Structure formats: C-alpha cells, structure tokens
C-alpha cells in the first residue's frame, strides 16, 4: 500500500492513501499530537470531508486497537519464515530473583541464545531494551529464539 506524506508547514503532516474500496483517505497529524481523519469528496478531488478528530489519548487507544493484533501477527509471520525460530512471552513473577535487577544480570542471551526483544510494562512497550533496563515484577518479556532457548529464559526469569 502506498501512503503519501505531505508536510503542512506550521501544522504538522498529512498522510493520504486509497483503501480497497477506492476511498481516498487523509489523516492529518498535528504538531500538538491531535489527529484529524477525512475522506476526499468524490466530486472535488481536493476537498476533504472531515470524518472525525482524535485527541492524543484517543489516538493512542485507536492505535493500540489497530496495532496490537498486527504486531503479534508480524511476529508470527517472522517466526514462520525462519524454521526453528519462535517467539514467546514470559511474565516476571514478583518472587523472581531478577525482579528489580537490570536485564543484563540475567545473562539470558549468553546462556540460552534467545533474545529479549521487548518488555511490555503496563500499557507501554520498551522495544529492544538495553542491558541496564531494570526488570519489574509484572513485566512481560517478549523473547525470540529456539524453543529450548525460550524455555531456558523462562527458567532463568522464574527462578
């Protein structure tokens, strides 16, 4: 799919694309974090008919609704493409000896070969965390590696 990006000086950015139903859709991302979604009129190719506006919070929620299943799917696609590779999610229990310690302390990759590619903490995601990222109880680690590798990380974290 082609998405056109147009700079709106002093306002922000406009993204436009055509969906499968041949609707021409525009999304204006304003500098202050709000969004406006419109569709171009059929009789005037330049006139946008406003559909709705989103505040920054609303846009986050919509992005999550649209994004979360897609991200999971992408991981599934990735692991399908490479034989032997899989993805797993491991929760950090409160009793874990690694809770409150930096990620690097687990030495997970050195010991198992599996990589921790993201930490899901509450409603936000830390993508490719650094070794000094401190783990908290309740964090969910997204791990990519072999089956054995992921199980190895699970044992380390849950010990």
């Amino acid at each position, binding site marked *: 799919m082609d998405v056109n990006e*147009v*700079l709106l*000086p*002093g*306002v922000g950015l*406009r993204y436009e694309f055509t969906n499968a139903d041949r609707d021409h859709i525009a999304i204006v991302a304003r500098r202050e974090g709000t969004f406006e979604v*419109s569709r171009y009129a059929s009789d*005037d190719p330049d*006139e946008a008919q*406003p559909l709705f506006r989103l505040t920054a919070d609303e846009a986050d929620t919509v992005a999550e609704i649209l994004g979360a299943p897609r991200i999971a799917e992408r991981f599934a696609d990735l692991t399908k493409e490479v034989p032997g590779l899989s993805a797993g999610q491991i929760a950090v229990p409160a009793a874990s000896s690694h809770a409150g310690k930096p990620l690097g302390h687990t030495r997970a990759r050195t010991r198992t070969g599996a990589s921790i590619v993201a930490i899901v903490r509450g409603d936000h995601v830390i993508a490719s965390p650094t070794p000094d990222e401190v783990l908290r109880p309740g964090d969910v680690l997204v791990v990519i590696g072999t089956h054995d590798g992921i199980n190895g990380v699970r044992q380390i974290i849950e010990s």
Partner: protein
Amino acid sequence: MHTSLALLLELGVILVGLSVLGAAARRWSFSPIPLYLLAGLALGEGGIAPVSAAGEFVEVGASIGVVLLLLTLGLEFNTAELTHSLRRHVPSAVVDLVLNATPGAVAGWLLGLSWPGVLALAGATWISSSGIISRLLTDLRRLANRETPAVLSVLVMEDFAMAIYLPVLVVLASGGTWWQALIGVLIAIGSVTAAFVASHRWGHHVNRWLAHPDDEQLMLRVLGSTLVVAALAELVSVSAAVGAFLVGLTLTGTTAERARAVLAPLRDLFAAAFFLAIGFAVSPADLLPALPAALALAVIGILTKVATGWYAARRDRIAVRGRLRAGTALIARGEFSVVIMSLAGAASPGLGPVVTAYVLVLATIGPLLTRWSGDWRWARRTRVRGKA
C-alpha cells in the same frame, strides 16, 4: 500597597467586554481582531467612552504585546518547513510579493506618504495574517484539503521575509541619511543572519538553559530573556519587535513547542492590549477620510491575494475550486499589518488611519469570503437544475 480602584474596574470591564466580542466573533468563525480595533476606537480619545485609568496599562501592555506577537511568530518557525516551502513555492512567494506589495506602494505614493510610509503600506498590503488564516483553516476543517500546503507555504515564506523586512523598515523609518540607513540595514540583516547561525550552532545550549522542566520556570526564563533582548535591540535602534522575533527563531524543537503553549495566554492578553492601543491612537475623526483609500486598497488586495493563492495552488496541480479556496484563504490581513504600521507610524502620520481601516475591512471580509468559497451548495443546486 495602593490599589487604583478606577484602573481595576476599567480594566476588568474592558476585558469582560473583549471576551464578549471575542466569543461573538468565534461564534461566526471570524477573527476578533477587527472588533478589538473597533473597541479601541470607541474607548480612545474622541471615541464614545474614553477610558483614562486603564489607558496607561493598555499603552504598556501594547509594547509587550508586539514583543509577544513577534516572539510567537519566531517560535512557529522551523527551518525544515522553510526549506520545504522554498523548494516548491519560491515562484509563489515572488508572485505574492509583487502582486500584493505593489498596490500598497502605489497607494502610499499617491497619498503622498514619506518613503518609509510607502514601504510600510506596501508591507501592510503584502502580508497575510498567518494567525487568522491558520485558525480559520482549522475551524473550517480544511487542514486535510489538498490546496492547504500551498496556502501554508506562502504564509511561511511571508513570515520568513518579515525577518529581513521588519529590521529594514525600522531603520528606514528612524530617519537619517542614506548611508546611515544603509549601515542600519546591513546591521539588521547581519543580526538576522547571526541569529540563524547562533540558533543552528549553539541553539541547543540556549535551549538547554531555557528548557526547564517546570512550566513556570520556562515561562519566566523565555519571557525574561526575550524582554532583555528586545530592550537591547531597541537600544541599538533595531526595534524591540525584531529582537523578540530573533529570540523566537533561536528556540527550536520541543522547547519552542512548550514555550508556545505556556506563552499563548499571555500573548492573547497583551495582543488584545496592543489592538486596543492601536484603536486608541487612531482618532475616529481621522478614520472616515481614510476610508475611500482603504476600501479601494481592500478591493485590490482581495483580487491580488486570490490571484496569488490561485497561482500557488495551480503549481500543486489543484483543480479550480481548490484554487479559489486557496486564494480566498489568503485574503485576511491582520496582526502583522498593524505591527508594521506601529513600527513606521511615527515617521508617517497619514499611515495609521489607512492601515487601520484596511485591516478592519480585510480581517472581517477575508474570513467570510474564505467560508463562502467552500460553500458549494449554490453551485450544486444550479447544476442539478441544469440537468433537469
């Protein structure tokens, strides 16, 4: 502490009155600026209800208002957006300048203004009000329209041109021989260039000091340093407004964004004082004789801005209706025409009434025309009737 009862009362009544006027203006989605000017005319000397006690505050507030208007103009500014606009729309900016400054210059010459007055009137007819227009495009939900980038590009380049135009105007208006003017112009251009280089090379140091995480600290630091720079600029006769504009230019990124947010209410208050003060300074008796000239200029100003917008939109391959929308969007003149007048006013006494009347007309009619240009119901109706 002695509190002036009259001051508090008058000021309070004025602010409440302005809020009523502003709400009415917003209700019909046109700019409150002409109403503020009219309120100033009514309250000033020779008006229907002269205020004496609040007058002093309004005078002081007005000079802070100009500084804040120009500071926020500078803060809006973003080098990436300028280079993007320059890449696509330099011819539009040239058309804009030639078509819109020429009528002002010719009119100034016909009215027998001094040279700085002619230059100021040319500037006042040239520059569209980016404040009114960007608000208008948001209110009319036109930001996603395909002609909007062309409109915004023209505005950005006008605002950038102010960085050169304002210092030159101030130097010429302050009088002196041709070589003094030349040196002044060079100093002005030099300081603008220096501000750009400084913001590019050391901007992050300035930003780091000013960007205190606490909003109150940020506001005090930005406002304080702007006023100091404005005063220094005034001292070397480059005008406080230009100094403030340069401070705005040096601030970038998130600091500029946060500063815009914390300064917005202050700017609104003091800018209102500025428009009131402009109304105070012009006597209603002088306004009437200036009206024919201002109306004639306004009619020409509407046509030339429509032509500018039409041309700029056509460069972006926009269809006819979009070109008309772009053209009418650019008509409104407002705060910067008034700022230009106030900077050159002392050198050219005939200028004030003409520009005030001009802005009164175009800040009112411009938004109305913009709105009508997008209202295609009449066009659709005729088409349906034609088919039947």
